[in-house]
């Protein structure tokens, strides 16, 4: 669906008309990311990250396919073939560093994209399906990234595979057979490495498929916006092209500058030195940590140190190991029910004073702390702090958000997006941007809402 005022694709030449009749692919593109897609005119830079994430996926697929031309998934030679790529293959070092850092930047972009969703409540009706598909993409990304990190077959690769498959060993009854089945052996070796490579190659294309669904679902209600007020009239929107293609183009440039600075000047800063030591099943590194983008979930995993028992009886209901696994997966699965936990009719955090306080002073510091704690040694006071922030994390979603949505008195919303951008005057007279003199940006709750800022 689209808005009634969306521009229609009009093929000009005989050739494009012929194509349009046989396979209206240009029309699809025109309606999806071209002039035929009306987008709220007030999107801020936080709305850049969706396109950037798609771009990251492309970087990863292209560099990944190329690296797979030189890599061999065999435990005896895998580490050597990675070094072969770094030393002998033309521009191999560039491709590999781009792929390794590309994973990190993909996660940076995705975390900002999710952060945007949290603050502006992008998960709320009518956009629940977009959100749910997004969480699926995130889970697939985590699986892909984990398996990719195993492929260089360094120490961290090996022990990461050991530890993460060990999580499944925590499941009662089937855990241990399941872990052995996942690895195809009693410890990570050829069988595990080869299946991880196969799946690591497959999953990005599955992600691309879900991304298409994600974008499809987005085009049903159209993009959200920083006021959280739905689009009411044509003056609320601009065509995606050229307005947001140009803005995303600029955003892409900034992203690429940061990305290439990392690739060319600090390519190993986000990695771990131990992964330049070939896998050794007989010696565990002093500190086993996953890649930085798993830190919050790793911190939650390690926060559960005690068994869940019936008080004073000593009967163990859930052992600590299983609790940690449940907690870690639960911390993401809770996002699946988020649209039904936060029932406030107001979307944007700008108009929700109480929500905003808990967001900036509760959730954001908690995430920051968990990011830090996941990379530390498992010792006090870090365990204690992990437990504190893990408790807050779950309570934020499961208790605080539902309560806030009950008691909060939201600030008055603008009548429309146009009013939010141009001030009240714009809604009474013809809202022709650039000709409106009476527009008062000062009434905005947040100056960043102006599209041109």
């Amino acid at each position, binding site marked *: 669906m689209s808005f009634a*005022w969306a*521009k229609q694709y009009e093929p000009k030449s005989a050739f494009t008309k012929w194509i349009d009749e046989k396979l209206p692919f240009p029309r699809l593109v025109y309606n999806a990311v071209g002039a035929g897609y009306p987008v709220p*005119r007030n999107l801020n830079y936080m709305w850049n990250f969706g396109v950037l994430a798609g771009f990251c996926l492309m970087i990863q697929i*292209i560099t990944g396919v*190329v690296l797979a*031309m*030189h890599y061999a998934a065999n435990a005896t030679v895998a580490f050597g073939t990675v070094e*072969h790529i770094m*030393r*002998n*293959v*033309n*521009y*191999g070092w*560039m*491709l590999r560093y781009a792929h390794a850092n590309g994973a990190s930047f993909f996660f940076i972009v995705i975390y900002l994209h999710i952060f945007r969703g949290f603050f502006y409540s992008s998960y709320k009706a009518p956009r629940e399906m977009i959100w749910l598909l997004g969480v699926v993409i995130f889970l697939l990304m985590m699986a892909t990234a984990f398996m990719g990190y195993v492929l260089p077959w360094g120490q961290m690769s090996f022990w990461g595979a050991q530890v993460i498959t060990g999580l499944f060993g925590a499941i009662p009854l089937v855990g241990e057979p399941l872990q052995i089945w996942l690895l195809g052996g009693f410890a990570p070796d050829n069988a595990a490495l080869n299946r991880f490579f196969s799946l690591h190659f497959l999953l990005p294309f599955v992600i691309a498929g879900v991304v298409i669904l994600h974008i499809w679902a987005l085009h049903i209600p159209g993009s959200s916006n920083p006021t959280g007020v739905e689009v009411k*009239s*044509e*003056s609320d929107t*601009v*065509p995606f092209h*050229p*307005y947001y293609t140009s803005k995303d*183009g600029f955003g892409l440039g900034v992203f690429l500058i940061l990305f290439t600075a990392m690739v060319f000047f600090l390519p190993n800063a986000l990695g771990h030195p131990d992964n330049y030591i070939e896998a050794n099943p007989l010696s565990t590194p002093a500190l086993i940590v996953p890649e930085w983008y798993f830190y919050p979930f790793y911190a939650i995993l390690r926060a559960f140190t005690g068994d869940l028992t019936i008080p004073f009886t000593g009967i163990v209901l859930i052992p600590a190991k299983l609790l940690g696994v449940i907690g870690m997966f639960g911390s993401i699965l809770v996002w699946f029910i988020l649209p039904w936990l936060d029932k406030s009719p107001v979307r944007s955090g700008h108009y929700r004073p109480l929500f905003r306080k808990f967001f900036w002073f509760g959730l954001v510091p908690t995430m920051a702390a968990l990011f830090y704690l996941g990379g530390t040694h498992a010792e006090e006071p870090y365990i204690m702090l992990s437990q504190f922030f893990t408790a807050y994390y779950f309570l934020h979603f499961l208790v605080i958000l539902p309560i806030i949505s009950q008691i909060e008195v939201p600030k008055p919303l603008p009548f429309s997006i146009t009013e939010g951008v141009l001030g009240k005057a714009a809604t009474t007279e*013809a*809202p*022709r*941007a*650039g*000709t409106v003199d009476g527009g008062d940006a000062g009434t905005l709750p947040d100056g960043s809402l102006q599209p041109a800022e």
Partner: protein
Amino acid sequence: MADMSGASTPAGATDMLDGADGVRRRDWIHIAALSTAGVGGASLLFPLVSQMAPSADVLAQSTSEVDVSAIEPGQAIKTTFRKQPLFVRRLTPKEIEEANAVDVGSLRDPQTLAERTLVGSENLLVTMGVCTHLGCVPLGAAAGEDRGDFGGYFCPCHGSHYDTAGRIRKGPAPKNLSVPEYAFKTDTVIRIG
């Protein structure tokens, strides 16, 4: 579009897309931005294409050394050069005579034996063991193999016959067996590549 509902069309779009005043002012900035992006995108192709070319270790393997002292006249050995078979053959006087008796002008790929060997060692024929038709390995290097109608090499895949100078005489192959660059490193060892 702009005519129908100009009042609600953002002014920027009108100026940019329709060029209301007939002149596309400052359009050059969009053209410049797009072409720069195009140049950037195209230059990405360079590493992506280049990575498929032979890597440094493969290029470094591209010389071979062969000790030719033990090859008796009439014998040939099969060795490798750049992961491809290489034939080194010591010709008998009779074979040299046969090769020189051919009218060069009548050949598909006219070359004399002297052009295909080093000065001073005309009896040592070094050729790639790769049929110039579609790349099979011709027979005739090992003892007892079919040497074809002309006593040189015979490719069983599609029936190309090479003579004692490794020249194509009959069959579909377009060229003579190619002679790699080589030189004597010592009196008995040749270095190919």
